[in-house]
């Protein structure tokens, strides 16, 4: 089956994104497919390449990156949620004349249409929030 996973919680604020990551790994491990991980609301903070947790804590940002890289799983950040929370890729940083971009390049900035497409196209949609 194909899963869309919606992540609404920010890392290190609630457990939502840690749960979502465990769930995503289990989807892959059980032979199912991740159609898309959609980061919405505070979930967009998971894409922040500047996150620097202590070395003896799980690096959730890198954990998502590993999942995206090793399993080709699509990590999509909602553009409207991301912009208002200061999560920008190079293109948006230029567009809004901001001094830097902090969104990891493994994350794709896209519109809310990708949430709806994910919900419609996947066999199952599971939401993690706080």
């Amino acid at each position, binding site marked *: 089956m194909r899963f869309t996973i919606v992540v609404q919680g920010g890392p290190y604020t609630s*457990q*939502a994104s840690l*749960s979502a990551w465990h769930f995503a*790994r289990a989807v892959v491990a*059980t032979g199912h497919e991740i159609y898309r991980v959609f980061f919405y609301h505070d979930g967009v903070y998971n894409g922040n390449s500047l996150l620097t947790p202590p070395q003896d804590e799980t690096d959730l940002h890198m954990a998502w990156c590993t999942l995206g890289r090793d399993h080709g799983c699509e990590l999509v950040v909602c553009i409207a949620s991301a912009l208002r929370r200061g999560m920008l890729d190079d293109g948006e940083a230029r567009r809004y004349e901001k001094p830097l971009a902090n969104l990891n390049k493994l994350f794709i900035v896209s519109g809310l249409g990708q949430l709806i497409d994910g919900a419609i196209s996947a066999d*199952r*949609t599971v939401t*993690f929030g706080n």
Partner: protein
Amino acid sequence: MILHTLNKSPEHAALGRCCETIATGDVLVLLEDGVYCGSAGRDRQVGELLAQNIAVYAINADVQARGLAVRMTRGVTLIDYEGFVQLCTEQASSKRWG
């Protein structure tokens, strides 16, 4: 049928709303702080669900992390995340309470 997830402790109104809405054939997965709803002394509503033959599961990692392994209500089934995924495939949709 629907897989309900609950990630709040019994302090929170989410438990009551979930229990009012859940129907026969649905399943409940307790995760994060939701696992307290299935622990000794806090399990009244979950006990009622079990009595109605509604299956209640709890994420083992959350149970272990909170020191609840010896305090969970009999009848609540501990699952890992793979089990969670399996339950999702068996239910038509999922609903988050929190």
